[in-house]
């Protein structure tokens, strides 16, 4: 009997594999642009895997009200031309939404996706993408860069004990990603009573930052914002330690992750990260499922969790759009904008909300600190949803 059951199960499984795609009633086409092999592949890979893993899990659970999500991944290797080419192909395929990746593809396509009415969920968290008056079809699922920076400033100020004004320096690469949050951040820093020192530029591909760190030391900065990627941040932290800086560093969402201790070799101790998610294995309700469905080799980094959440958000929107019978670009956009207090099971710092006039998913940021090579949650900072901060 057991034998027969097993054979039956095997046959059924094979049949499912063979005919699953052909026989399922309908599929929902979604695009997925990822960078696996390009310059941002190091962080792009886990993010993309998170997106795909959640999608596969949804499909095993019966998809969107019985419809499978058809979302093959395309590796564009951070080549904007390739991304645009593939986007034009997705248009031909009539996708209802696109899971995108970095500033390169997201910014280049921001106007086009708006005109073509295709919701574009990115991992580029630039604040100007949150204003629907300008980029109505852009969405993302983590606090934007400027909000993250403001939260960090608030945390530092709240924990500042001395009487004098704290001195802060902004270290960032001279690229749009690095520059984006600086203006808003500086204004808020002044508002909070920081003394803002002159900026330092450290390139994304820098292999040393001695002169910049020497300058930071001479200025006597108490705090330093590092708005680069993991490599440049690790370089900064290492050189800062070498020169004996006492400055406390706090980094952008892409600036540091679980790989930083390996890259910085201990110099990361005490540095802060403005995270838009929890870490793998933390004690939150949503983590159990994530740990079951993940196919990432080894414990995934925080970027994986954000990719996972971003697909979760899209899935919820697809469900709503499907129920209304509006499985198309504008329908999915409208559905995304009805999401209110979407519970991600604690994977994000707060519940996510999108409205037709405000695409900021949340104003809450997890402030994490490196302690003995591990990321530890220090505090969750919630900022007010100020209208004048929208898009800045």
């Amino acid at each position, binding site marked *: 009997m057991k034998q027969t059951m097993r054979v039956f199960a095997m046959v059924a499984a094979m049949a499912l594999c063979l005919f699953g795609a052909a026989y399922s009633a309908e599929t929902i086409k979604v695009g997925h642009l990822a960078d*696996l*092999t390009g310059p941002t592949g190091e962080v792009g890979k886990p993010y993309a895997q998170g997106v795909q893993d959640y999608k596969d899990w949804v499909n095993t659970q019966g998809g969107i009200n019985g419809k499978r999500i058809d979302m093959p991944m395309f*590796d564009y*290797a951070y*080549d*904007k*031309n*390739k991304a*645009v*080419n*593939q986007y*034009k*192909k997705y*248009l*031909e395929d009539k996708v209802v939404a696109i899971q995108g990746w970095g*500033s*390169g593809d997201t*910014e*280049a*396509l*921001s*106007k*086009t996706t708006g*005109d073509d009415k295709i919701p574009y969920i990115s991992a580029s968290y*630039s604040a*100007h993408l949150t204003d629907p008056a*300008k980029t109505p079809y852009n969405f993302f699922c983590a606090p934007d860069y400027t909000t993250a920076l403001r939260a960090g400033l608030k945390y530092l100020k709240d924990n500042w004990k001395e009487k004098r004004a704290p001195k802060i320096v902004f270290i960032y690469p*001279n*690229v*749009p*990603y*690095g*520059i*984006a949050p600086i203006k808003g951040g500086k204004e808020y820093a002044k508002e909070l009573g920081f003394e803002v020192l002159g900026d330092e530029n450290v390139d994304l591909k820098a292999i040393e930052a001695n002169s910049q760190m020497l300058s930071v030391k001479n200025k006597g900065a108490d705090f330093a914002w590092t708005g680069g990627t993991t490599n440049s941040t690790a370089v900064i932290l290492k050189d800062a330690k070498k020169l004996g800086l006492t400055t406390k560093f706090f980094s952008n969402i892409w600036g540091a992750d679980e790989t930083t201790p390996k890259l910085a070799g201990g110099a990361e101790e005490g540095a802060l990260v403005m995270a838009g998610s929890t870490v793998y294995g933390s004690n939150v309700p949503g983590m159990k499922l994530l740990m079951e469905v993940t196919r990432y080799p080894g414990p995934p980094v925080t970027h994986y969790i954000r990719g996972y959440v971003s697909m979760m958000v899209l899935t919820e929107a697809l469900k709503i759009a499907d129920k209304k019978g509006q499985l198309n670009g504008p329908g999915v956009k409208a559905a995304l904008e009805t999401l209110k207090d979407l519970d991600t099971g604690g994977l994000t710092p707060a519940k996510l909300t999108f409205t037709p006039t405000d695409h900021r998913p949340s104003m809450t940021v997890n402030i994490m600190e490196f302690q003995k090579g591990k990321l530890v949650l220090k505090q969750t900072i919630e900022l007010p949803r100020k209208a004048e901060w929208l898009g800045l």
Partner: protein
Amino acid sequence: MQYCGDFRTTYEKDVKIFQTPFIKICMGFLGVALLALPFLIKGEYLWIALQILIAVIGAVGLNILTGFTGQISLGQGAFLGVGAYTSAYLTAKMGLSFWVGIPAAGLVTAMAGMVFGVPSLRLKGLYLAIATLASQFILEWVFVRWEPVTGGSYGIVVPRPMIGGYSFESDRSYYYIVLAFTVVMTLFATNLIRTKTGRAFMAVRDHYISAEIMGISLYKYRLLSFGISSFYAGVAGALFGHALKFVSSEQFNIGVSIVYLAMIIIGGLGSIIGSVFGAIFMILLPKILSVVTETVAADIPSLAKLAISFEQGIFGLIIVLFLIFEPDGLAHRWRLIKAYWKLYPFSY
């Protein structure tokens, strides 16, 4: 190349662009094919065709400077950017028409090109290459930092052109505008080469001391070459900006300059048709490679991961092989093919 029975009795006949009725017919067919193309392809391939047309303008421009006048420029990418930003600023921020924006983009970029071309009066070869490389970095920095004009890190959103009430919103309609620019500018370049100016460019390239002794003003013609070349780059950049409807600093980096240089080297230095071939080759090659790697990856899944990594390597390898086996570029190969068929089957 001259063949039996093909002789000219006047200078006018010798410099004709379309030498024989047969070529005229061929060009007619090419014209019809280009006009019909948007109805044969769509989506991704139509977009690629658009990019090729734009790249042809930029490559022809660079070839005038590098191929015909012998001045190496590593700043073509940034000059494309100057054009794109000029047109973007005029159309998006000042509300002027696309038809003002494009010529203005060309003129402003020509000015910029002439300013950055001034070192060419003193510098030659590699030294000039480095000087133009500096212009690339300076301009890139301006793109990111001159926020009131360039939008800084946010870039500028640009509209597609309009005529009357009709907006060229679709790629198909916009293709025809770009096609018109490409045809006119390519023909202009072909004609330019036959004029006194064109011959002066070549004299400067071949031996600048001799040229000067012959009475050619190096100052004038080097700067003029920079100006014309940058005009082409400006128009190409502006057309690209309007195609993508978005202009940002990251689109015009040093990589773009290198690609354009590769286009004219692979296509053939000092050849207009070579610039066209080079542009087609460089834009199409990545797509062909990814189609091939995808097919291979589908048959042998274990290769899927490697395939994309290989793509970059193969891309480089093809370019290296090209330079070794076809140093005169695709234009030379084109001439050989033509010669072969002209005498077929009695080639000697």
